[in-house]
């Protein structure tokens, strides 16, 4: 929709330019999907021309402005699967960005699931310089992140070892191809352990790490102890009790799948 209060677009924009009334603009699919009467300027990031994907010896750096379509076509199976978990259609993928999904910080944001499950690290640029925050800690609650208003998300970097690890994926929704109510990713770690990432069901990501592959009981106890009951989201996309139940169900399915 038209953001009628916006009087100016700064393009390209960078750290240090933010002032009250500004919003960082990625693809625009989230920003333009709600009235934003408090905005007067858009700080355009895609025009900065950051390379979408940068591969180094041990890591993949994904620019915040990398589109969902670019990530989906990157050849990494978990990336593809997480993109498929979007409620949004492939047409939105052509425009929406990885960074935009992270910054929206919705429980169902599948780029959060992706980054958190792979031990991704966010590179944040601000007026006082850069800083790094693990993706799992980037989102602090429903719609909230560690970002200061003046800061922007530049990229997330995921280790190749994690990207190439065995993983198992489960998504639950109230509707076929619908918005995620529960999204769990299990990954075998290099030391033979398990990293289980719970998203969508909870207000922020929870990453549960196990030294070896836990047995069923240990897994369930860990879920109970690590994720408090009030961490589960209750909204039109699913009752909290159902999300908690599916989290437990899918966690066990993932455990079994990765044990096989």
């Amino acid at each position, binding site marked *: 929709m038209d953001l009628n209060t916006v009087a100016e677009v700064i393009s390209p924009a960078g750290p240090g330019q933010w002032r009250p009334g500004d919003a960082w603009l990625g693809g625009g699919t989230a920003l333009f999907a709600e009235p934003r*009467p408090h905005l007067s300027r858009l700080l355009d990031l895609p025009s900065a021309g950051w390379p979408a994907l940068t591969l180094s010896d041990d890591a993949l750096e994904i620019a915040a402005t990398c589109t969902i379509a670019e990530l989906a076509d990157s050849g990494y199976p978990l990336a593809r699967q997480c993109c498929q978990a979007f409620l949004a259609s492939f*047409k939105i993928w052509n425009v929406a960005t990885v960074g935009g999904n992270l910054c929206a910080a919705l429980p169902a944001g599948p780029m959060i699931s992706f980054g958190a499950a792979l031990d991704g690290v966010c590179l944040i640029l601000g007026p006082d310089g850069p800083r790094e925050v693990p993706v799992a800690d980037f989102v602090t609650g429903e719609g909230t992140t560690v970002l200061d208003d003046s800061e922007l998300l530049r990229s997330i970097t995921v280790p190749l070892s994690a990207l190439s690890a065995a993983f198992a994926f489960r998504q639950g929704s109230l509707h076929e191809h619908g918005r995620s109510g529960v999204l769990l990713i299990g990954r075998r770690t290099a030391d033979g352990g398990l990293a289980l990432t719970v998203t969508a069901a909870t207000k922020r990501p929870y990453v549960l790490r196990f030294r070896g592959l836990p047995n069923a009981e240990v897994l369930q106890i860990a879920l109970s102890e690590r994720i408090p009951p009030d961490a589960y989201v209750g909204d*039109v996309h699913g009752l909290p009790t159902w999300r908690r*139940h599916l989290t437990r169900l899918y966690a066990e399915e993932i455990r079994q799948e990765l044990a096989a």
Partner: protein
Amino acid sequence: MRINGSEHDRAPRPGQCLRTYLREEGCFGVKKGCDTGDCGACTVHVDGRPVHSCVYPAFRAADKSITTVEGLAGPAGRHPVQQAFLDAQGFQCGFCTAGLIMTTAALTDDQRADLPRSLKGNLCRCTGYRAIADAVAGVVNVCEPAAGPAVGASLGAPAGPQVVTGTARYTFDLDVPGVLHMKVLRSTVAHARIAAIATEAALSVPGVVAVLTHADDPGRLFSTAQHENVTEDPADTRVLDDVVRYAGQRVAAVVATSEAAAEEGCRAITVDYDRLPAVFTPAAAMRPGAPILHGTDSNVIGELHAETGDVEAGFAEATAVCERTFSTARMQHASLETHGAVGWLDDDGRLVIRSSTQTPFLTRRAVAALFDLPLDRTRVIAGRVGGGFGGKQEMLVEDLVALAVLKLRRPVKLEYTRAEQFIGATTRHPFKVTLKAGARADGTLTALRLEAVVDTGAYGNHGPAVMFHGCHESLAVYRCVNKRTDAVCVYTNTVPAGAFRGYGLGQTTFAVESVLDELARMLDIDPITMRERNIVRAGEPLLAPGDHADDLSIASYGLDQCLEHIRAAARTPVPPVPAGWRVGDGMAIAMIAAGPPGGHFADATVTLLPDGRFELAVGTAEFGNGSTTVHAQIAADTLRTTPDRITVRQSDTDVVRHDTGAFGSTGVVVAGKAVLRATTTLYETLVAAAGGRELDEAVLKEIAARAGAPLTGQGSFDGTPRSVAFNAQWFRVAVDPRTGETRILGSVHSADAGTVLNPGQLRGQIEGGVAQGLGSALAEHVDIDDEGHVTTTGFRQYHLPTYADVPRTEVLFADTDDAIGPLGAKSMSESPFNPVAPALANALRDATGVRLTALPFTRDRVWVALDGA
């Protein structure tokens, strides 16, 4: 920016989205369905890639090449996908069609092979998606106009070529020079008296032309509901009231030279509310001492307490008695075109309103009455209407637009946002229904008792009428002599409910058919046999407690055939399902009157044109219901010509004398009958004029030339007497008890619509009704929080069925011929909705042993019910 091959230099505004820019540049095929990136109606290609233009920043497209539906085919003809949608008739109202075509044209082969995923960003509210699947697959469903009878053939909609090319003109698809934009400030509180409104700051916003408040109200009470008989609905509404009765009610309207200025003006208004206590449920509204919304004594706006026979005696002689309480959700119509109207004064100073309405004539009458205008100084036009479903049998915008136009003497438009559809339009009436039924061991019903509490929201539009209708056919379809109804319709401080497909019957049928199913189980009787023991039969009276219009009878009967179709479906083998899943079957029936009681009028005029063709003028609006197609078919056969030689003019108060409107499933049975009469009259005139010659083109031209004035035929129908139509739905489901997921393995719908005038369209209407019914059963609910605010204000919170959600439904027709309807036809636009939810509930009961009583059955709720069972 390059748009469809030509350069456009005008710079977009900084915060503008591509959708509105393209429309400003004349690409009216680019539609606003949601404006949030969810529905896909605005899909265009940017440098060849499909995007949702409503969430695409326009400035970013400055150096890009844009293709819209208007440019898809290139200089001439139709793109193969456009042709495919035309051949399959992959649309009804057509408002989503441009987006679907632009999406389909961009699909890879892999994406075509996975349409449930590939089309999840394209919402269609009308079709149920089967016709869209056919279009993508290249299936041809329509036939060309040819010699021989047109009635009975699956002719395509006359507007099809315009719909698929993006050139069909909906409400706002035209330039109105100098048009002003209106935005509405809505109440943030559920119940209050407005102590003060400060408008000065708003008036000083550059571009703001006027601010309208309750000080500008014309001072007349009316109902937004539109019925032939005005007294059917309580007059409880003002254009702008000094009391707000729900969060979302109009408080003020700002008219400005741009939408931006109008929005800014709304933000600049300050309102002082004197808060009043509010009630959000009928139970709270009926408590002693509850705040009264209107008048002085009670929030009950309609009630029915009546009995036939002796219900207590009936229960006493029953072998088994079952009683359950059911609740249904608020639903939104979610027509892809939102409410809206644009008004102006024509050269003669006459008020003209172009609106997205199902009732142009009644709306003209309502506007004229509000502002003391003679009818001939008021004209209401509907363009092609982007979906209705009852939601546009309501005056929600025209009054305000008229007020502004008359005050300012300038053109004014008001277009709802999608969020306004949820917070400031109408919903389906939520019902709470307690149904008690008793039967003898052989299944014969001994007594039925229906208790209904109907929540009409803050205003009574359609409330009593929906309550009465809901309490009639749902009971009258059973011949049980002992019946009792106790129903109340109650005001609450919530968004008003209004007319919605089925008009109350869906809600009560859910209860009746669920309890019948349960009773059959108690007696160990097959549910189809249970129906056969009790359904009303041809020649029998239709009886329900209360004073109902007495012009209703069974003028054709096919319910027995519908049940046979369901029985055959139930015999089909069960496909394999994953381990742990549970399978079950369920069915339900429904009956509906073919038209509303109390008169529904239509006039039609047919004129022989000088070129030997015909012009048919009818009042009804076309919103995908397909009545235009059928009217042309009826006219063609009566006039012994082909439908392509008939031009239909419609939905304009200037073209005929009167038409009650396109609601109550009357497009065929009422307006169609007027068409039949008009064309029959003209045909007789022409036969006489031909003097024994065949009425070929040359003779028709000669007759037209010879006549001093145009030769016309007039026809009318007053909508009485009325017949009834029947529907039966069957589902086979598989349920995963671990997750609550329900998969529909089989869906069969049998309909008795009398003589089928256009099988392709009828199938489409039924599939669309089933899809909407599935939305009610599996997904849709408008939620209201503790303060009375609607919290589901967009398609991300309010889940409309997508391609992936809707199974194929096998549609079967009973073979009947109605004694009342035109050429033996009956109505079939609302009724397919009604048996869907109970059939699904009964299938879930069969699969799981659990009786679900509250709609919708989302996966989480199903899991909770099974987990607690």
